[in-house]
């Protein structure tokens, strides 16, 4: 093996990981701080978690965020998968170029622009802003991430399996359901999770497209953070980090397990 980790490599890895994780670790530790002063350590305590449970506004916001994230991630998975199929399995169609441009653009589009433009659309159409407008906005934002993940998975195996099924007389819809879908299922799962996490995290687009009745968790946290650091905010952030970390680790374990089972079939790791 010519691969050899030099001291420089190890040092930059160590620095990188410390840089990425130290702030998070400090945030988590200080959420268990008994002192109200966020910079003074007053011993271990879970009182801020108990405090959170009494914070009606925060709980409401969390519930709204969860519902929006579930709905928009579901819709984004369906739309994103259709877009991925259109881009990989249907070959050329007129309008393919603007289509793929629209699919990839939200990835890098600054959120203030997407948020503002969607808000103006809702106002122009005279739709009250709230749960539904927010879900539509998040679906639009996250479907491109699903498309990219599913597209990579569809490119990862050739179409000969589907062609074989069709040659044997299987109708296209059934081919999709019985051949394609099981093969891309891990990609769908990770696409859904990514969409879910992005929706749960979004502040900017949510600020533009949600109304007074639909405050999400990030909007609530943001309005509190503007007033300064508070131990309750550390607690709610710790819970969000824990949920996301558990989900991502579970997903990668599932992908690994599937990899082991299907080793050699050329399936992409989701």
């Amino acid at each position, binding site marked *: 093996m010519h691969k050899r980790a030099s001291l420089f490599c190890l040092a930059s890895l160590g620095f990188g990981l410390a840089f990425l994780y130290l702030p998070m670790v400090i945030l988590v530790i200080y959420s268990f701080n008994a002192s109200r002063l966020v910079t003074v350590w007053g011993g271990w305590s879970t009182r801020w978690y108990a405090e959170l449970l009494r914070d009606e506004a925060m709980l409401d916001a969390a519930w709204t965020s969860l519902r929006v994230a579930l709905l928009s991630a579901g819709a984004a998975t369906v739309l994103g998968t259709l877009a991925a199929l259109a881009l990989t399995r249907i070959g050329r169609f007129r*309008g393919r170029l603007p289509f793929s441009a*629209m699919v990839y653009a939200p990835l890098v589009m600054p959120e203030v622009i997407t948020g503002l433009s969607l808000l103006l659309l809702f106002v122009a159409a005279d739709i009250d802003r709230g749960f539904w407008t927010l879900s539509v*906005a998040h679906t639009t934002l996250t479907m491109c991430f699903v498309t990219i993940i599913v597209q990579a998975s569809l*490119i990862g195996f050739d179409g000969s399996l589907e062609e074989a099924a069709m040659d044997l007389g299987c109708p296209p819809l059934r081919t999709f359901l019985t051949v394609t879908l099981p093969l891309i299922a891990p990609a769908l799962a990770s696409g859904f999770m990514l969409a879910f996490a992005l929706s749960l*995290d979004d502040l900017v687009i949510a600020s533009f497209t949600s109304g007074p009745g639909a405050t999400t968790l990030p909007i609530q946290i943001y309005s509190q953070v503007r007033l300064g650091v508070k131990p309750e905010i550390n607690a709610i952030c710790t819970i969000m980090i824990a949920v996301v*970390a558990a989900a991502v680790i579970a997903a990668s374990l599932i992908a690994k397990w599937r990899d082991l089972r299907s080793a050699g079939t050329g399936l992409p790791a989701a």
Partner: protein
Amino acid sequence: MSASSTDSSVTPARSLGQRLVILVPYLWLAAFFLLPFGIVLKISLSETALAQPPYVPLLDLSAGWDGIKAFLGGLSLDRYGLIFSDSLYLSSYLRSLEVATLSTLMLLAIGYPIAYAVTRMPARTQGVLVLLIVLPFWTSFLIRVYAWINILQHDGLLNQALLALGLVSEPIAFLATDKALYIGLVYSYLPFMVLPIYATLVKLDDTLLEAAADLGCRRWQAFWWVTLPLSLPGVAAGVLLCFIPIVGEFVAPDLLGGSVDPMVGQTLWTEFFANKDWPVASAIAVTLLLLLGGPILIYQHLQARNLRVGP
């Protein structure tokens, strides 16, 4: 809109199912991505009005030709004139470009060695390391910025540590300065820089390096002449993936940077939420989009090429 032409122009063999597969996401994106930009463009050309919604109405088609004439007559470039004449707007664009350029360079300087180091590890460890680098990306941007407020505030941990070590005699002001802004931006965007570079480096054929070594290349020479040029597509993707969103960034400059010298995302936010001047906010958005149009097109080109070559 081009969506309707798709339906009529598909090749004859196209089945209903295939049409639906194209049409459903196409119409969704046309309605919720393309159309809104048209509206932004229109409102950026409108006069500000003290009403709800605070701009002169959209195209009134029910009035027929007169409606269209009134519509065209009502368009004005005044908002754009304002943007280019008022130094507040111009300086926030320049500020955004400066911050995005500098932080992207920092990200490259920090991210490239990390991506390179990951590829030098045994294959088993690489998977874990990539997961560890991606993991923070999944947590909220807001939380990641907030984590730094904890550390950087006046009596925060960083100042406590510096004081305890005797490196400074009194606390340094980090929050509401450029230091905090750049730390926050580099921290938040690091995975976006590392992953694309790693993805190209890991595909690199090791035999090329062996060949270089056999021909008498030193390690750093092999790196300079073989590894670095071959990793440039990944570098380009990483740079664009960081630069474009940072230009329009709002959360990090708002919470970590100062309010004296706002970035364009903050200016747009203020015009919209505080000043309720929707036409000016729209004109800022359109100008920002024009500014980023080039980089976005290059990124799309790279992305499309990557997907054609395959993962």
